[in-house]
Structures are given as structure tokens and as C-alpha cells.
């Protein structure tokens, strides 16, 4: 069995750093895309036009479905269905799609709650002035919803850093899988997984603090 001396080498460090990079990449890209798509879904669900009723139904169905599937099941389903369309896509790309699909559903709900938090009279005030739906959103609703949306969205993203560990099952060499590979090479499981655990905490803890700080800053004073 390999000892601790062989563990603390630049090789291991570089290997873990690469894995950490993939963990962050999946989270960052997946959650950013998820935020944009979730925003679209939230807006679709807010519309009131009778013509858009099927779109509202689909958006609602999507959100309900993907919030009731284990991320592991989403990963496996995406792996086997996406590659039918794009067999050249890397496993990292496939995992990122899975993150996007899940994040879209959760962030759509967060964004919807934020938009709903803007009092109805604010929207009516804009409506009676003849502002178009887009202008109402851009000048009145979004500027006020932003402070309600951003903190939980940031917290969700920090949480998802940890959930991407399941992408190890696909064979994406992210942080959790990196730990497993090191242990399979013969390093002690305590050392291998312990190091990975510490790396997760080192990333997640400051990010979590930053998200909490953001919440204090945005929610307390409503005006500059």
C-alpha cells in the first residue's frame, strides 16, 4: 500500500487540481445555463395569454419532473440519451448537461419566487402607464426581484458543487472520482477521501459565506 509520502507530491496535487477544475467547471457552466433557462421557464409560467397555456403547462411539468428525479438518475438518463444525438460529446459535457437540466428546474422555482415577491401593485402601476410587458419586466420587476433571487440562487450553486460528486459514476474525473482513483492506486482511503473532503470544504465554505454575505447586503437596504 502506498504511504503518505508518495501522496503529497506535485503529481497528486496536479491530478487533484485538474479534478477540482472539472468539478467547478460543471457547476459554474451548468448553473449559469440553468439560471438562464430557468429564467425563461419562470417567465413562461408567469404569462397569462390563453395561447401560451400549453407552454405554461410544459414549463410547469418540466420543473415538477426534474425536481423529483434523483440527480444520479438524471445523469444516467442524460448519458444514454444525449450521446445518441451527439456521440462525440465528452463525459464532462454530458455531466454538464445533466447539471444544467437539474439546475434549470430548481432555479426556475427560485426565480419564480423572486418575481412573485415583487408586489402586484408595482406591476399595476407600470401597466396603467401603458408600459409593455417587456418594459414592465425590465424597469420595474427585475430590478426589484434581483435582490430576492440572487441569494438563494447563489446558495443553490454552492450546494450543487457537492452534488456534482455523483458525476463520478459516469466516469468524469471530478473531485470525488479523483479520490476513488487515488484509493484504487493503493493510497489509504482515509488519506484519499479525506483530502478530497477537505478540498470540497475549502471551496464550498468561502463560497457559502460569500452567498450569505450577498444575502445580507441585498436584502437589508432596499435603496442605495
Amino acid at each position, binding site marked *: 500500500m502506498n504511504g503518505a509520502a508518495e501522496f503529497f507530491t506535485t503529481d497528486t496535487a496536479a491530478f487533484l487540481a485538474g479534478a477540482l477544475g472539472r468539478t467547478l467547471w460543471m457547476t459554474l457552466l451548468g448553473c449559469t445555463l440553468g439560471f438562464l433557462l430557468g429564467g425563461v421557464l419562470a417567465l413562461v409560467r408567469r404569462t397569462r395569454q390563453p395561447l401560451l397555456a400549453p407552454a405554461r403547462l410544459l414549463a410547469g411539468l418540466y420543473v415538477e419532473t426534474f425536481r423529483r428525479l434523483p440527480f444520479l438518475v438524471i445523469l444516467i438518463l442524460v448519458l444514454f440519451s444525449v450521446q445518441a444525438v451527439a456521440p462525440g460529446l465528452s463525459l464532462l459535457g454530458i455531466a454538464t448537461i445533466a447539471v444544467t437540466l437539474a439546475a434549470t428546474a430548481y432555479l426556475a422555482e427560485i426565480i419564480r419566487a423572486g418575481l412573485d415577491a415583487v408586489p402586484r*401593485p*408595482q406591476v*399595476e*402601476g*407600470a*401597466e*396603467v*402607464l*401603458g*408600459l*409593455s410587458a417587456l*418594459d414592465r419586466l425590465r*424597469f*420595474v420587476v427585475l*430590478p*426589484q426581484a434581483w435582490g430576492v433571487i440572487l441569494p438563494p440562487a447563489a446558495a443553490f450553486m454552492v450546494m450543487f458543487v457537492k452534488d456534482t460528486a455523483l458525476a463520478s459514476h459516469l466516469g468524469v474525473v471530478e473531485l470525488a472520482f479523483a479520490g476513488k482513483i487515488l484509493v484504487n492506486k493503493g493510497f489509504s482511503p482515509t488519506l484519499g477521501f479525506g483530502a478530497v473532503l477537505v478540498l470540497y470544504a475549502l471551496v464550498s465554505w468561502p463560497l457559502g459565506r460569500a452567498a450569505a454575505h450577498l444575502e445580507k447586503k441585498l436584502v437589508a437596504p*432596499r*435603496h*442605495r
Partner: protein
Amino acid sequence: MSLLDIAELSAGYGGNTILDGVSLTAERGDIVSLIGPSGSGKSTLLRVLIGLTPPTGGTVRIDGAAVDYADSAALKALRRRMSIVFQQFNLFQNMTALDNLTLAPVRTLGVARAEAEARGCDLLAKVGLADKAGAYPAQLSGGQQQRVAIARALAMQPEILLLDEVTSALDPERVGEVLDTIRTLAETGITMLLVSHEMGFVREISTKVVMMDAGRVVEAGPPASIFESPRETRTRSFMQAIIRH
């Protein structure tokens, strides 16, 4: 031809009728006050007129032309001629007083920003808030917010102004400043429909008073006749209940 002609207007949600065939007219320059107990449909009437609550029957004509409330283009045209001030002000919390005034003229009337701002400053000066252009709503008192809201409605240069219990949410000592603003406004000749519980003010300023109850018009007429010699018993009992307080 009346400027505003409301005929058999009805509205409600589900099986609940809130407006039950309301008819009334207003001539150019009229100041029409809607009075009556809570829940009589006064505020709903204003919300239907401005297109926030869809009517379930009847017609609204402006200069003889019927308004199609189901058509968004018609609504947009309507809101260029008619504006409303709410009980709760509904000022945009994320904008300064001046930005509240300029947003709609710039975005919907296509007025140049500099021109809109100059006009906005004028209007703020008219409501006595020239120094508050850069203030956010939360930094203003209720009375000041309501005066900004009136200025915002005027920025759209409406022919008809709707005022929905604009003093109800204010501290008693702030009511006077808002009523003064409306008095000044009345002298400009703008047509107004207002819902108010300030009976002295109603009697002083109105050209016409409309008594409503249970979604219907009980009686309408000049303030002197409604206040001193009401024909209907419902109006008389309402007046007595108010005077007793």
C-alpha cells in the same frame, strides 16, 4: 357628446358581481366624486375604466368611441388619455421620484429623455417637491409619495384622471397637502373621477356626486342636492351615518 360615457357596466370574479350595470357620464372639465360604503364597487369601477379589471358587460365610450378592453392596442391608446393614482401610491421602489415620472413618457410616448426630465421637474415643482427629484420613495413621507404619484400620472398628459382614495393611506396631518394638490389641479380644467371619503372636500370640489351601493348607482347629481336633499333613502342613511362620526 360626453367625454366619458359609461353604460350598464358590469364586472365581477367567478359568480361574484361587483359592478352591476353602472351608468354615468362626465363632461370635459367635470369633477365627478364617487361616494358610498366600502364594497359598493367604487374602486372596482376605476379599475375597470383603466383596464386592470376586465368588464363582463356594458360599454365605456370616450368622445363617443367605445373602448375594447380585450384589445391590448386599444388599452394602450386608452392609457394615453386616462391615468390613475392609487391609494397605495404604487411608486416604483427601485427608482427616484424623477425616474418614476420619466419612465413611461420615454418608453411609451417616445418623448426624448431631456424633455421628459424637464417636464418631470416642472411637475414635481407643481406638487411642491422640486427638491425631491433624486429621492427614492422609501425616503419620502406618505403625503410626498402620493404627490409624486399624482405628478407621475400627470406626466402622461391625460385628459381624464382617476383618483382612488388617494388620502386613505396617509397620516391625518398629511391629508391636507395632497388635497391642496388636487384643488390646484382642478383649476387646470382636467376631468377627474375620484373616490374619496373626505366628504367636506368632495362637496367643495365636485361638479357632480355619484352615490353607489352594492355595485349600482343609487343616485347622482350636483353636490348640493346629494348632500342636502337626497332623494333616495339609501343615500340619506349613508349621509346620516357619516355625519354622526
